[in-house]
């Protein structure tokens, strides 16, 4: 969404002030530790949403990086996220299709047990389908539960036959390419 110049400047100034306030507050947090009169059980964490400080995901800052979500309808299967991921937690398998999907992303797995939430994959995502959600509590007792699958599933034989038929039609210029 395109914003006006004025609102961009205002949000920029807000960001700068927020950053300065955050640094100042964290500096103040450290003062009791200097004199040794700190209480180690006191909660000093800022902005981690938890039941103790009664915060919800809606209280999270706008650019917070929660669990990843991929909108498979918009995903182009370009594999940029897979290539850029520093911990190789993303696995993508895609093949070209000839129906309205154009590209069939059969596997799109994100292993959250490896993911470090650096956000690089969302920055390189050209169609903008891969995004951080505001969901943050993703812990699980089993490693296998940590893998999130967004893919459309393996290509069936009937699908493949349909695509081959259509591709043949396109090559014979009987139908226009979608």
């Amino acid at each position: 969404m395109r914003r006006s110049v004025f609102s961009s400047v205002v949000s920029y100034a807000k960001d700068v002030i927020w950053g300065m306030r955050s640094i100042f507050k964290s500096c103040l947090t450290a003062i009791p530790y200097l004199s040794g009169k700190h209480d180690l059980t006191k909660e000093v964490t800022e902005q981690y949403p938890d039941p103790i400080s009664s915060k919800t995901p809606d209280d999270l800052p706008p650019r917070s990086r929660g669990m990843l979500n991929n909108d498979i309808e918009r995903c182009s299967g370009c594999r940029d996220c897979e290539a850029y991921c520093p911990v190789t937690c993303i696995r993508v398998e895609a093949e070209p299709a000839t129906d309205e999907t154009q590209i069939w992303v059969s596997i799109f797995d994100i292993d959250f047990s490896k993911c470090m939430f650096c956000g690089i994959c969302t920055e390189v995502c050209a169609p903008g389908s891969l995004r951080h959600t505001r969901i943050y509590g993703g812990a699980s007792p089993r490693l296998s539960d940590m893998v999130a699958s967004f893919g459309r599933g393996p290509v069936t034989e009937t699908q493949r036959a349909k695509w081959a038929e259509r591709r043949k039609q396109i090559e014979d210029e009987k139908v226009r390419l979608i």
Partner: protein
Amino acid sequence: MNAFLWVSSWLEGFGLEQVESIWILAPLGLIFIFLFIIVPSSMIVAYLDRKVTADFQARVGPNRAGPAGVFQSWADFFKLLQKDRNSEVSWSEELWLAIHTMALYSTVAVLPLGSLMLLVDTDMSVFLPFWAALVVALGTMLLGLSQKTVAGWYGGIRVATQAISGAFPALVAMICVGLRAGSFRWSGLVAIQGAAPLSWTAFSNPFQFIALIVFLVSGLVLLAIPPMDAALSSPDVSGGVAAHLSGRRLVLFKMGRFYSFYLWAVIASVLFLGGWKLPFEISENLLEQGKIQLLHFLELCCLMTKSLILILLVIWGARVNPRTRVDQITDFAWTVLSPFALFALIGASLVAGWGVLS
């Protein structure tokens, strides 16, 4: 070259005869400043850094070497000197380490340490340490590229990237001060300031205060000082350029990095925080009485105290905030520091123009 005559007054104090030759005075002055000012202050700050960091993290910190661990820096120094090198060091690596360290310590000659302890005081004095900082960044990059390790390559490139993005706002903030003083001489920059905080450049108008903040933060970016040290951090690039160095070379490298931090704090104090100005006309009285050494010492103490406080404030901020990612550092320098530096420059120009016109 009266600039070096202050050295001879100290030499007389050590029982040496009057030395007139500039070729003897200049190296003696540099060695004096390095051994008696830079090395002790770096030891003190290294110790304070470790102790304060330990306090913030509810640890004890150094406590074995001497009372409360005050000799920890010396212990580390001597231990590192004894270490053997762990891997083959190529000639190009040796060369770049030596060259960039020499470029760094050449700035000792332009270091402003008091009204009488100015070795080089020209119209472009302010810019000399600044260019030296850029040369150091380039030298660190070439040192990293000559190391044939991934950490060295990435660390070296990142140091150079950061330095380029941090240089612009720092330069503009420096010009803000020059506008107010009408000169880029150390003596001229300090002459317009007073001993009281309200007569310092930083608090003369709000634009100069913005310039001070921009200058300090862009210094952190330019020299890769915590929390902007993603180029040299161990969790990020396993130490970057420093990963391949050990023993004496590591001492040389770390000492150089510390010295650049110290240099930046001294320059910031001189430009913005009143420099070596003493209150109650102490300097005039001492000059009349001819107590030159005492004046040297008091001015130096004044400047060192300000620099130490500045360094401790930066350490404080660095230890309670997370380390910044390297692309976020460059983004921050171009999109936040640079506009604010230009804003401060416009404001400072208007204030200076208003002062001339009215």
